[in-house]
């Protein structure tokens, strides 16, 4: 076990180094550079060279990479070319909104999708199953931006009390207003984006759960459980459900990077101050430092998520031994 952990950590470090090189190269090989944004279009070559020098863009690529990584190791993600602010600060101020939205979306998705998937497996080919299957395909196929705009126009603008943009009303803060006033305000803001995210995310999990459940209920031990006279309810909850949940549990590991990655479309339509928009804008503005920090953060979360998934697998399924 210890050996396994050490090996995995070493692997993770190697993967991260690889990703840092790739994300550095992608940004620097893409056409154009931040000078195009900073300088005027008719800036003289001297002015451009001057800007390059100030931001260290005149150094050879390996040296730039080395400088970047050695600062990273010290915890310094650099400074944005565009805003002049520390990258880590820009990311951290956007991260909470993304995590809040994705966290609640995940909760809603799992709370709804798991029972829904289970029931449609148990009542395979019933009307419920058909409705769920159809809805699941709808959820996957519906363009998020369209669904979001429809919600804004037919729910947000019609029902008073439901907010269509932003994350909070200015001045309504925890501790300033009564707890429930603030809670109501936050809920009024989050409800529409949450619906969109949950609806499109639910489909996959529900189908997954259905498949997994179908697989389990046809296993021998379920037949055994039934034949020894256990009530059906017990068979399902104690034997079938728990085993069917195994593959779902490991999915949670993969959700970790999703938790930290912004949903660009949702964020832009609902003006949700999350991380996705910052990433997209930084790409357009060729703001290397911010984009590279994003890539690295995403890679880090993915690697950790995979690692957790493996560990979780071992925890929930005693048959699996990692070494």
């Amino acid at each position, binding site marked *: 076990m210890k050996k396994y952990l050490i090996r995995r950590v070493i692997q993770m470090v190697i993967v991260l180094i690889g990703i840092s090189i790739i994300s550095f190269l992608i940004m620097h090989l893409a056409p154009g550079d931040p000078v195009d944004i900073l300088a005027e279009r008719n*800036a003289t070559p001297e002015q451009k060279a001057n800007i390059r020098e100030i931001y260290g863009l005149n150094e050879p690529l390996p040296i730039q990479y080395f400088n970047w990584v050695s600062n990273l190791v010290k915890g310094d993600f650099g400074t944005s070319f565009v805003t002049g602010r520390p990258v880590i600060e820009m990311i951290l101020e956007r991260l909470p909104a993304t995590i809040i939205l994705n*966290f609640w979306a995940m909760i809603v998705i799992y709370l709804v999708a798991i029972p829904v998937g289970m029931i449609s497996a148990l009542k395979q080919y019933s009307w419920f199953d058909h409705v769920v299957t159809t809805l699941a395909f709808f959820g996957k196929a519906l363009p998020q931006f369209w669904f979001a705009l429809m919600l804004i126009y037919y729910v947000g603008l019609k029902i008073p009390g439901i907010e269509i943009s932003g994350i909070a009303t200015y001045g309504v803060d925890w501790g300033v207003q009564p*707890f429930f006033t603030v809670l109501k305000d936050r809920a009024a803001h989050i409800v529409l984006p949450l619906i969109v995210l949950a609806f499109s995310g639910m489909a996959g999990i529900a189908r997954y759960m259905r498949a997994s459940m179908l697989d389990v209920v046809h296993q021998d031990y379920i037949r055994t459980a039934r034949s020894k006279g256990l009530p059906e309810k017990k068979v399902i909850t104690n034997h079938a459900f728990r085993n069917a949940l195994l593959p779902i549990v490991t999915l949670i590991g993969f959700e970790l990077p999703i938790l930290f990655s912004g949903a660009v479309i949702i964020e832009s339509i609902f003006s949700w101050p999350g991380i996705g928009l910052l990433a997209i804008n930084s790409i*357009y503005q060729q703001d290397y430092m911010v984009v590279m920090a994003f890539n690295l953060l995403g890679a880090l979360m993915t690697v950790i998520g995979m690692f957790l998934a493996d560990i979780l697998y071992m925890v929930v399924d005693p048959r699996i031994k990692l070494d």
Partner: protein
Amino acid sequence: MLDGRIVAHRANLYSSLTTNIELENNNKNNGGYIRMKKYLLILTVLVLSTALILSGCTPEATTDPDEGENTEGQTATASGMFTYGFNGEPATLNPILSTDSISSGITNFVYDSLLKEDENLEIVGELAENWEVSDDGKTLTFFLQDEVYFHDGEQLTADDVVFTINMILDPKYTGVRASDMKYVEEVVANSDLEVQIKLSQVDVPIMEALAGAGMGIIPEHIFKDVPAEDLREFEASWNPVGTGPYKFIEYVSGQYTVLEANENYWGEGPFIKTIMIKHFQDNQSVLSAFENGDIDYIAKIPVEDIDRLKENLSEEVTFVETPNNGYYYIGLKQNHEYLKDQNVRQALMYSLDRQTIIDTVFQGYGTVINSHSVPISWAHTDDVNEYPQDLEKAEQLFAEAGWTKGEDGFLYNEDGDKLEFTMVSMTGEEEKANVIAMVIEQWKNVGADVSVEYYERSVLFNQYLDVGEFESYMWGWNLSNDPDSFNQFHSSQAKLNEAGEPDPNGTLKGFNDCEYINPEVDQLLEAGRQTYDTEERKVIYAQIQQILNEELPYIFLYTTNDVKAIYNNLEDVVWSPLEPIDHHLWKIVE
């Protein structure tokens, strides 16, 4: 704030305890004690993270500004809140670094410039009470308003003005204001309230530059120790302290910028207490926020929504249609094998029905443009060829240039070459792409085979426009209120060789990327920059417009109009022909 957090924690802990107990009861019979422990663990993690997230999303509690503090000696008390939306985020809050309209839109509230444009787009004093121009036109003396204070209480003096301009002139300065100040030789403070700008040559457009939000005067006492190259990173570039009618309170990325009335403002007002600028990321979201009453003003209603909005909100909203100070065009390489012939360029112009393009793509919210000028400019002349669509004339002009229609409907010259060329433009702009599609179709009708290639912005600039390597391209100009177009059409701004002569193999020096060379225009452009006499300049720029209209370095296309809307609870809104201005004079009815 603390209280709220404690309550939140307590509530969550309580609910977690009860759930756990229930779980314990349920699981007792199954002997799943170990599993239950796992559940407990997971639940605790969930609950803790919920609590964390709830407390984590607490925005910085806004310090309620001390209202009793600044009322001394104040006549008007500001009240109410004016909310509007921007599609995007500011890139900086330092006026002399700003390049986008969002940054300058915010800094304009916080900082004052020496001059400003009034509601007739004429230049008037702001921080400068008045000014003098020396007889040779090379020395500008500005006399500042007395008793102007920065928001931190320091008095504004001539030194702050000198400091601001010197910062821009610093070779290490990384912003884009340097070219506006390129003829400034020296700036000196003659006294606390008198600044002198010495120019190396007469440069009339500098007045327009000094009147822009981008030339806000920054406080020397805050910025004095910052090297020019570190200006962008300096914290005061994000915490602006100016002399303007509004004080900066806070900017929350992705959410809002809040400004508060400067009760010690030197001028009239402000009457509205709070300005709340919400940052959106999508035009549709700005629109729906406006419809929902979340914002009081919208700067541009998407054309397809104008009629619906006018119908739904006619009672509570005022709609104003304003022109944009800019236009779109197709630049034609003047030394291109086919396009160098003026007849061909004019024929291309006569082939187009530009009004139909405006009616189709912009639903009529736009105006046909025939030269380098827009109708609202004081220097604009209508005395030019309007190039109405005339297919016969186009055919005749093509014939004069040696192009005849072949069997396939395309034009061929004597050598049997087809009249074809390529246009480059930028990806991701739907309206522009629609215009291009219509233009190409109309040209195809007369036999010109034009293909279009779209590139991502930085590719378009780096590989085509900024190096002047193209046959034709579609782009637009934002104009200032000064009619000067030296950068676009003077031969010194085209491709030059090492000796400084125009040369198609040289390097592009300015924005004359079509390489339009005309000594007469050169002379007029130079003369136009040298005289402060508006009547004289009107004559000069009318001539330039007429020559450009005839020789057509560009296929001049259109300018668009925006429909802006503002809720009627705002009063005394000052409108320039372009946009609402002077927010400090506005009032709000609650």
